[in-house]
């Protein structure tokens, strides 16, 4: 029974890595300014330098045509995005009830479904002279058919306001509200991939009670800035490192605080082969409660690893985790239609009190001994080529390896994650009003399970996904 629970938990974790978050591409901006999607996106939804600068400036071109009062009253800054088509999913070594012909209770599942993936309703833009905003509503997806293993609920995914050019300098901007970090090494919300994410943004060590994943959206305040040409950029954010899925808060002034920092520098080389280079460093440090008051007394104690039966706002005994990493982005052949090589490496550490052992108790191994810090190292490499604004070819490789397990109940390789994704994307309609792209994508991913979860010589389970879809935005 315990083995089965662990197996399901790990598969859910694999699923979480496979399921991308919603993605942002906002044709309302193209409509407002008359530019084609290719002005801001290398190929949508991925931003190019011009698009990054536009976003960093609070969705402004800064030529006196940004504010709502300069627009026709008929202009309404709203956009929709969805993806429709066919998705095939296959997962090996899936637990099922044992039978005479399948005594191990393991099967390969296959689903081929027509449906849709995600529905984002986005509105964003300038409110006033130095104020911008973004709202993203993710509609209820239980009927999507795609990713049927884990349908997602509807949510107001992002809601924030940004104050730009404070004291008339681009180095000081403040964003308040809930949303994705402005500034990940590669933007999770604007990635090409629809069936696989950047692994390090969502990875959690086996047994870890950490709820923070940089690829998700959190409430907080972000101070960011850049020079006029937007090639030097920094970001510092103070976030609530938890969200609606685990709404259990510590009783501190800033609940479950997580601090994020990022520095990037982009330089055009002027060369014909290597067109640009962009190194960067990033990191996060957060604190999460390991004790709290319960709602139901001894029979159902507060479980700090899930927040179950815990009274929100009573969390205490804060324990730390941190992430630190580096990145490099290279553009070859052209900065206009580039062959891009992106890579990032991240080291993660969760302190011992935040690790759940095999007995399900925080900070304790199954034999009652204390857990220790968990360490992992991960990264990704992505090669993408956009020979013209219509076509993009991309390959993503993800790998995360446990360096030290937090609990002796887990074998050294438990949780190791490998994934790759190949896609072709072609814009079949492309204008300053709307876009539709055909995308063919193949991805595979696997996570090593807890020792003993599977019979010797079997595993790790592998998830495969094939997507043939029309991704469109209006």
């Amino acid at each position: 029974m315990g083995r089965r629970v662990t197996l399901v938990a790990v598969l859910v974790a694999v699923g979480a890595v496979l399921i991308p978050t919603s993605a942002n591409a906002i044709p309302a901006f193209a409509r407002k300014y008359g530019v084609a999607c290719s002005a801001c996106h290398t190929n949508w939804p991925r931003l190019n330098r011009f698009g990054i600068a536009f976003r960093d400036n609070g969705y402004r071109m800064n030529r006196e045509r940004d504010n709502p009062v300069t627009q026709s009253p008929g202009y309404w800054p709203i956009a929709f995005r969805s993806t429709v088509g066919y998705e095939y999913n296959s997962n090996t070594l899936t637990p099922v009830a044992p039978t005479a012909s399948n005594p191990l209770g393991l099967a390969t599942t296959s689903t081929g479904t027509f449906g849709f993936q995600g529905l984002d309703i986005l509105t964003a833009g300038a409110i006033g002279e130095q104020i911008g905003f973004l709202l993203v509503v993710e509609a209820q997806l239980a009927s999507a058919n795609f990713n049927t293993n884990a349908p997602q609920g509807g949510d107001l995914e992002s809601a924030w306001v940004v104050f730009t050019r404070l004291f008339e300098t681009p180095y000081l901007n403040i964003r308040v509200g809930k949303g994705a970090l402005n500034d990940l090494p590669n933007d999770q919300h604007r990635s090409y991939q629809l069936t696989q994410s950047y692994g390090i943004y969502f990875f959690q060590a086996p047994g870890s009670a950490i709820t923070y994943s940089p690829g998700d959206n959190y409430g907080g305040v972000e101070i960011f800035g850049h020079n006029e040409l937007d090639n030097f950029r920094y970001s510092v954010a103070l976030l609530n490192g938890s969200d609606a899925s685990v709404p259990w808060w510590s009783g501190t002034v800033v609940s479950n605080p997580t601090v994020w920092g990022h520095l990037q520098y982009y330089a055009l080389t002027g060369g014909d082969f290597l067109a640009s280079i962009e190194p960067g460093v990033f990191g996060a440090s957060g604190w999460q409660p390991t004790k709290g008051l319960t709602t139901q007394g001894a029979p159902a104690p507060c479980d700090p690893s899930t927040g179950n039966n815990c009274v929100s706002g009573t969390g205490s005994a804060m324990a730390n985790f941190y992430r630190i990493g580096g990145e490099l982005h290279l553009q070859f052949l052209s900065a206009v239609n580039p062959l891009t090589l992106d890579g990032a490496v991240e080291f993660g550490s969760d302190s011992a009190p935040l690790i759940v052992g095999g007995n399900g108790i925080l900070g304790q191994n199954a034999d009652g001994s204390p857990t220790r810090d968990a360490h992992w190292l991960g990264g990704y490499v992505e090669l993408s080529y956009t020979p013209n604004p219509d076509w993009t070819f991309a390959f993503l490789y993800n790998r995360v390896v446990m360096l030290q397990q937090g609990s002796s109940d887990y074998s050294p390789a438990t949780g190791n994650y490998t994934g790759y994704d190949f896609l072709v994307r072609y814009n079949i309609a492309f204008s300053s009003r709307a876009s539709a792209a055909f995308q063919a994508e193949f991805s595979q991913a696997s996570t090593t399970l807890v020792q003993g979860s599977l019979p010797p010589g079997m595993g790790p389970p592998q998830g495969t996904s094939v997507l043939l879809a029309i991704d469109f935005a209006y």
Partner: protein
Amino acid sequence: MTTHRALLAVSFSIATLVAFPRSALADDKPVPIDTGLAKKGETVYARWCVSCHGQQGDGRGYSAQWLEPRPRDFTSGIFKCRSTPSGTLPTNDDLMRTLTVGLYHTYMPPWAIIGDAQMRAVIEYLKTFSSKWKEEAPGTPIVIPAEPPNDEASRKRGLGIWKNNQCEKCHGPEGKGNGASAPTLRDDWGFSDQPFNFAASDKRKCGTTNSDLYRTFMTGVSGSPMPSFGDSISQQDAWDLVHYVLSLQAPKDTEYPIAEHY
């Protein structure tokens, strides 16, 4: 005799200018388009410019009909912001300046972010849209003398120049862009082209510095109703006019210009 020779020389010069277009003069040979660079510029143009300026560079991109003012028609070889005399082609530096900072109060954004190499390439490419670049050389940039003091006397003289040149017919008595003829003004392509409201904004199309304003007075905004005064006012007059026009701008902390502007 001396007078006779001088008259002869002047007559010959005038006859030469009339007989030969400016580009045919030995010193003003067209600069050949760098085709290699233009080829690179074509990809830049396709990504960032085509939706407004059009595939043929005629200012009729698919977004153009919704934009005011309309995107420039490159096939005409007429450019708004130049350091060169009215009627002549701009220099590469002029075009770089426009690309780098964009044009305020239009939908032309600043493109400095894409880098100098990309901007230089697209400049070569947009030259391929008009035969004018093969026939004429860019004009010679005007010289902008050092700015004299912006004092009461200068502004007072500037007011006189403003009146003498009937600036208020278009820009209005207070420079708010609401002169009597403002509603009827059209650009060379027949589209409405409204005079600038000096009271509401210091973000003038062809640049925000005092020198930019001086240059605009002396070279005009080609293709628009704004003429060049380079042949009719002196350098001192132009600076006086700059100082007067600057005085029309309301203090930044007043709400009045915002309301007027919008």
